[in-house]
């Protein structure tokens, strides 16, 4: 039983954080209809910036905000490449992802791993210190939950604003955005900024959990985030009360559970990325199969 509780804790510790990234990808992929590959670069960007800043003694919460801003800037770069230079959406993402590799190395001063053990992080500061001893081991999961909840609420509120409504419209019908006298390209850039901001934030929080940043940590993040969004939508899409942001977080947790279960059953870690690809394929195929009647699968809108 202890082993099981430990596994659940492990799943939730990372699941909520990947959920934050999944919400970001929900914005780019589902709302904007933009398959954004820059995620593989912006996730470690958040981690590396956080590591460098925490070593420099910056407040961990401020680190999170700076990581968000850096991710947003990278998203703007992808958007500018696509909108202003007319490069296709997939290639724009790949360009940003590639560029971020060097940016990350510059931030970590050339090392692939940048540890910051025993420094103050969001998991060791403020309220988490006050947690009673017996639930202290759950602090990673609890703070992950709080972070995911805050992100979800902010995102849901944003999607109900005029700007959020316009963002959803621009993923839906660009001509409509043009006809109400707005630049659809600008909305794309804004959406990419928001989405990549959340990805970098997830990278930042995860690095604080393991107290080190790894520039390789981004590999496979696109696949993981997309799979989370699609699994969440596929499994919970029928439940009217759930918002797509919640579905994305739940999808991330389920995805993480699958990985943990497979490893627990004896899958060697070398096969992990292969398993991620298989899971993603399974998610895509099954949702396509389930939603054959729908003209545009995976496009969902929040219940407002």
């Amino acid at each position, binding site marked *: 039983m202890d082993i099981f509780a430990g596994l659940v804790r492990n799943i939730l510790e990372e699941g909520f954080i990947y959920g934050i990234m999944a919400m970001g990808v929900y914005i780019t992929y589902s709302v904007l209809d933009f398959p954004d590959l820059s995620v593989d670069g912006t996730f470690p960007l958040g981690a590396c910036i956080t590591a460098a800043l925490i070593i420099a003694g910056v407040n961990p919460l401020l680190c999170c905000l700076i990581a968000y801003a850096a991710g947003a800037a990278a998203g703007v770069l992808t958007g500018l490449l696509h909108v202003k230079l007319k490069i296709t959406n997939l290639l724009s993402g790949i360009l940003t992802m590639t560029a971020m590799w060097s940016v990350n190395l510059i931030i970590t001063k050339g090392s692939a791993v940048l540890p910051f053990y025993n420094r103050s992080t969001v998991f060791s500061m403020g309220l988490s210190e006050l947690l009673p001893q017996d639930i202290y081991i759950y602090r990673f999961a609890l703070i992950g939950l709080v972070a995911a909840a805050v992100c979800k609420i902010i995102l849901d509120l*944003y999607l*109900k*604003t*005029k*700007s*959020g*409504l*316009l963002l*959803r*419209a621009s993923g*839906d*019908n660009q*001509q*409509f*955005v*043009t*006809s*109400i*006298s*707005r*630049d*659809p390209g600008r909305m794309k850039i804004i959406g990419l900024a928001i989405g990549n901001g959340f990805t970098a934030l997830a990278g930042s929080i995860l690095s604080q959990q393991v107290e080190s940043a790894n520039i390789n940590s981004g590999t496979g993040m696109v696949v993981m985030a997309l799979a989370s969004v699609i699994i969440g939508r596929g499994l919970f899409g029928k439940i009217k009360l759930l918002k797509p942001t919640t579905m994305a977080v739940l999808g991330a947790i389920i995805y993480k559970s699958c990985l943990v279960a497979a490893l627990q059953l004896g899958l060697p870690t070398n096969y992990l990325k292969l398993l991620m690809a298989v899971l993603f394929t399974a998610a895509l195929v099954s949702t396509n199969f389930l939603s054959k009647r729908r003209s545009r699968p995976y*496009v*969902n*809108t929040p219940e*407002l």
Partner: protein
Amino acid sequence: MSTLPSCKESSKLVQMEHIYKTFNKGSVNEVVLFSDFNLSIDKGEFISVVGSNGSGKTTMLNILCGFTDIDSGRILLRGSDISRLKEFRRAEFIGRVFQDPSKGTCPSLTILENMALADNKNKPFGLTQGVNKKRIDAYRTQLELLKLGLEDKIHLQVGNLSGGQRQALALLISTMTPIDLLILDEHTAALDPRSSETVMELTQRIVTQKKLTTLMVTHNLKYSVLYGSRLIMMHKGDSVIDVRGEEKKRLDVSHLLKVFNEISVECGN
């Protein structure tokens, strides 16, 4: 609403002057569509435009809206040159309904959200409440004008509506805020005959009520005779018939069809 200087009481609303447009310039597929095309639209006119495929009707609309660039010439709106303005900037003054009913609305947003977005045209899209609850009654009243019962379905996603309903909504949405010119791009062509009649009647009602200057391209010769105060038949990038007022009232479908067939035979259609 306008950033254009309002012009000196001229009745000319739109002037397209010396428009030149060649497609695929320099290639074997080069098509010279417009060479020295001119059109002026008076305030309050309702113009029906007919013509065969490739006659330049839709390109003319695209040029007016800024979707297609011109090689040379200029476009004046209320006396100001708008030739260099981007499509989304011109949308401030020009409303457009497309042939494809899915182009005028957002399918995954609700009727209410679509209307709220259109209502906010030319205003900032900031972080305030997307749908202003106080306006809902006003939206309902406007939907009642359509007589399609949409006022009871404002929380329904537009993707669930029929083509005719969507087109009616698109028409309402594109005329919600004051515009100088309404462009109808074969907006009944994709609809079944009954929906097509309904949307046409609605068009007439909205245009009269809001006193809109309208440019309607249609393939339906009957509509072109029945509606509007001026009729233009286009052929190979030029207008071959341009009648208005009493002269237009005397025009009938059979005469129009005769001219239409003559020019069509001539170019081998």
